[in-house]
Every structure is written in C-alpha cells, then in structure tokens.
C-alpha cells in the first residue's frame, strides 16, 4: 500500500509518541526497556496491518505496537503499573506483553525465542482457517541465536506459512555486541538456509522498512510463504533504565545519534513539504498531552487485589458453562 501524506505524518507521530513515552514512563517506573533509536523499525514494521493479522512484537516496542493496534494508552500504562484495570488485571507485566484482544501475541513468559514459534502457530492457524491473514513477528538480534528461531522459521518455510519475520537488530543483547554473537553479516543471510527470501534493510529508515515488510506481507497473503527481514538499527539507550553501559564507547553512541531515525524522518518530511517546524511542535505537544492524560488516568486506577489473584481461575471453563453464568 502506497503511503499518503497522512500516513507519513501518522508514522512520524507514532515515532514521536514512542520516544516521548519512553521519557515519561522512565520517570514513573524503574527498569523500563526504552525503544529510543528503534522507533523507525517498530513503526515501519507494524504500520498498516489488518485488524485480523496477528502481530508478535519484540518486547522492546511492545507497548508502542499495542497502541498502534488500538489499545487505549491509559490501560497499557495501568498494565505497566500492575493496576487491576490493566489488560492482564495485574497478572502479568504489561511492559513486555501486549493484549491478545488486539490480535497481539506477546511474551507470555520472560523467555526470548518462543514468541517466534507462537507467531508461526498464528500463521499456521491463518493458513488452516484460510483467512488470508498473516502473522508479523519481530525479535531482537540476540533472539536470533535461540534454537526457536531455527525451528520456527524452518517450519514456516516448509509449510509455506503466511508469516513475516523481522529481526530488530539493535546490535546489542544486553551488553553483548552483535559482532560477538553472529559470524554472518546480517541475520537475513540465514534465509538462504531456509530457502526463503532474506532482505536486509536500514532499520532507521521508516519508509524502507515499511516497504520491505509490506512486500513480504503481500507475498505471504498470496500463499508464497515467509520472508526473513533484518532491520539494522541501534539501541541509543541502555538495555534498561539505569544501565551504566560499561560495555560500549560513548563515541559509538554519538555516531549513531547522528543516524537517529526521528530527526532523519523529520528532515525528510520537511524536505518533502509534508511537515513544518511548527507542525512538529504541535505534534510534540499533543503527544505529550496524550501521554500525561494516560499516565494520570492509570495513576488513579486501583491496584490489583485478591479478586485479580484468581485462585479459581487457572483453567478456562467450558464455553457453554461460561455462557450460562
């Protein structure tokens, strides 16, 4: 799908919202895994998917993707805070796992890798139900070394499943630089081993990643199987808030700040005549206000209590019985 000016502005707003949300939520809650620097990959990957497509986002960016899927921001914040009105009713951390009611499969456990397989399962369901839906699955460069990466992508390939796999390569798994974890140049190189297309894109160019994902989605919908994309980006912040980042040089971070996807996209849109400095200020103000309101609303919510603990709620009741209630 070609991008109209409205789409471009919308993508810019989403990237701005992601960046601003990082800043504001860090003030509220420790241990936040910031997406700073990776917004283009996240927004470009998950923009313009159908409501019935299943998305399986990497944990870093999960909240932004949930918002993109239509989840109200205040409920997402409530989930981060462990409030009773969060999507999991305080039962699971909302920063890592998006709400399934928006066809999001999040990290149900704290383990990286199984989500690639869960996404493959969602693609399998789409194929079996003949729905024409796809599963779009993203994960980090670190995760690409887990066994599930191999098993899941190979299975998706042999079954021609409608899936798109995106490696959000931010070059660090916590402190380990990708050069110490991969001998190949790009995770996309591994696609050859699975007999599927592999595409390497600039993960800081939102339009480039968007185009690559959309082309892969189209191929998947047409029954031509999965694609593996590597979006090379950079984690501008630490692994999580408070990371002293002893494992990398400041110069390296400074070098990548010059490639920051936000100012880069802004310049491009201004050059295209789609955006003005005034409009940027306007968007920034509106986004901040939206986040403040969401955080305020979440603050007012009650914490999860005994009812949410749900000691009699570990099994799904039979559907008929539930309806009788």
């Amino acid at each position, binding site marked *: 799908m070609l991008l109209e000016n409205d789409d471009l502005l919308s993508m810019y707003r989403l990237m701005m919202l992601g960046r601003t949300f990082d800043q504001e939520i860090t003030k509220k809650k420790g241990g936040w895994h910031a997406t700073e620097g990776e917004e283009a990959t996240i927004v470009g990957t998950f923009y313009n998917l159908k409501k019935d497509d299943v998305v399986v986002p990497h944990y870093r960016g999960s909240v932004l993707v949930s918002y993109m899927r239509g989840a109200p921001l205040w409920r997402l914040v409530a989930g981060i805070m462990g409030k009773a009105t969060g999507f999991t009713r305080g039962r699971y951390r909302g920063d890592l796992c998006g709400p399934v009611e928006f066809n999001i499969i999040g990290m149900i456990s704290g383990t990286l890798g199984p989500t690639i397989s869960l996404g493959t*399962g969602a693609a399998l*369901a789409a194929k079996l139900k003949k729905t024409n839906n796809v599963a779009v699955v993203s994960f980090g460069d670190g995760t690409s070394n887990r066994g599930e990466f191999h098993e899941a992508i190979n*299975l998706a390939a042999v079954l021609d499943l409608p899936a798109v796999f995106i490696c959000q390569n931010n070059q660090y798994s916590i402190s380990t630089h990708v050069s110490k974890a991969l001998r190949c140049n790009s995770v996309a190189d591994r696609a050859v081993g699975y007999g599927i297309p592999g595409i390497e894109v600039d993960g800081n160019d939102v339009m480039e990643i968007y185009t690559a994902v959309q082309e892969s989605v189209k191929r998947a919908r047409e029954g031509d199987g999965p694609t593996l994309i590597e979006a090379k980006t950079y984690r501008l912040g630490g692994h999580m808030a408070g990371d002293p980042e002893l494992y990398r040089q400041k110069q390296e971070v400074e070098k990548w700040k010059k490639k920051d996807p936000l100012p880069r996209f802004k310049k491009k849109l201004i050059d295209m005549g789609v955006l003005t400095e005034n409009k940027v200020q306007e968007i920034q103000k509106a986004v901040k206000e939206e986040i403040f309101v969401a955080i305020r609303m979440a603050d007012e919510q009650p914490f999860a209590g005994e009812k949410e603990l749900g000691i009699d709620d570990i099994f*799904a009741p039979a559907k008929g019985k539930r309806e009788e209630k």
Partner: protein
Amino acid sequence: MKRLTYQEALVQALREEMHRDESIFLLGQDIGVFGGSLKSFKGLWEEFGPTDRMIETPLSESVMVEACVGAAMMGMRPVVQVKFGEFLPLVMHSIACDASCVWYYSAGKARVPMVLRTLFGIGPHRGHPQDYHSWLLNVPGLKVVMPSTPYDAKGLMKSAIRDDNPVIFFEHMRLYHGSRQEIPEEEYTIPLGLADVKREGNDVTVVATAVMVHRALDAAENLSREGIEVEVVDLRTLAPMDKATVLASVKKTGRLVVVHETWKIGGSGGEVSAMVAEEIFEYLKAPIVRVAPPHVPIPFSLPLEKMFVPDEQKIKEAIRTVLAK
C-alpha cells in the same frame, strides 16, 4: 460392542472427534503413511491426509508444541504428538511457561485448547521409557492425564480434545498393544479430574496410575485369597487431582499405599501422600508407604530393569507393611 486395544481406542477417539469438530488438527512426526510411532495414528492419514487436518513436521519438538499453542490461541484445536515422554524436556518451556499461563495471564481473553500426546513407560520395545509426568504437576494451568485401560483411554482422549485447556496426555507403551476391552458403540466421554475405583476393598487403599493399576489389581486379587481386601484407586487424571475419591477411600480403609513408575523423590505419589496426611491424618492407622523405582536413572539391562520397576511383589510387600502397623 467391539473389543479394542488401548491404541485402537485412542485412534477411534481421534477419528470421532476429527469428524465432530473441523477445528481439530493433528500435528506430529511420521504421523502420515507411517501411521505414527507404535501406530499411534494408524488409519487416520488414509482418512484425513494429506490435508490441513494432519500436518507432518520436521524433527522440531520445540516449535511443534509452541506453534500449536499459538494456533490454539487463534481458535484452532491442535492435537500434537511429542513422540516420546523422553522428549518432553525439549518442550517444557512451551508447556510450563506458555500454554499453562495463557488463560490466566490474558485474564480470560485467550485459551489453549491443545492436547499433547506422548508415549512413555517401560514397554515391550523398552526404548524411550522416561516418565516425567511429576514435573508437570507443579505447574498451575496444566491438565495431566494417564489412562490405564482402552475404555478410559478413549473416553479421556475425547474429553481432553474438548477441553479448553492444555492437556498433557500420557500413553503407556506397555498397555498400547495389550489386552483388549469392550468399547461401547455409542458415544461416551470420561470427565477429566475424576479418579476411578478399579476395585473395592476395606483394608488398604492403593493409589496407582497406568501399568501400576494392573499390577496393583493383580496384587489385590492374590491378597484377597488371604482375606486382605485392597481398594485400587486409578487416578486417571493427575492434574487436577481427584482429591475427593482418594480421601473417601483412605477414610474408609485407614491405610494408604501409593505406587508409580516414576521416582519417589519429587514424584506425584508424594503429592498424594502429602494431601492425605494434610487433610485426613487422623484417619490413618499406619504410616503411608510409597512404592517407586530406586533413585537411579532407568537402567537398560533386562535384569536391572526388573529391579527398577515396581512389580506385583513389591506392591504386595508394601500392602503387608501398612497392614502390620
């Protein structure tokens, strides 16, 4: 009425359920023309393959189960075979960290109606005997089933498939092509979570599963000639455990022997014993005795195997021990 083996009864259950519900699909290795290990899918490929109802996969247990969790979350009803219980550790994450938690963590927004079939136990071929069922009892959100007869196998499999929760279904290899049993022509199911008193008696309660049920019954028959009346309780479902049936039996007899093919330390028999001691200690006339293999890995050589696995003799000794006090 037809007389069927355990294996035939299981396949009949699968066939009937496949006809009843289109959202059920079977996934596993060598489940096609080969018919599944130990003929666990015999005849189904001829009827349902090669279509989307039956999916043969590469040797990738991890993605096989995890993808079925994903597909189940998206509305399908997968029956996945992990050929042998020995391979369960390969899929432990999918079972214990993902499948079990989906209903609870999603606050009831997603279900995992999945059956995981697995062949286990010391059988005629003697390969892959590992019995790791006890590990699973520690995990909230899983159902664990272990039938001892063809009749139970069919009725429990049908209930497992209709259940909206992940069910781990243990199929004992010694019983697989063993004695036949009359199976009614008309439809029947056996509810999960319901133990069965396989033999009534007033002197001692023996709680057992799978092959051990039969050895306990043999022991009971022989002791009956000496005037000792043993009640044999077949748990059938280990999780959720039918406390009421066990407690009622022990209240009546005042004596308890628990027998299983897995190890004593951390074994499910410990849970049965603790439950009885915790809830009706005052009814016990003698200390509880557990019969289980010695705490060594399963040995290969036939004489060693005989020393390892509980037999009728060991069960009789345990019964005499609890009666002597």
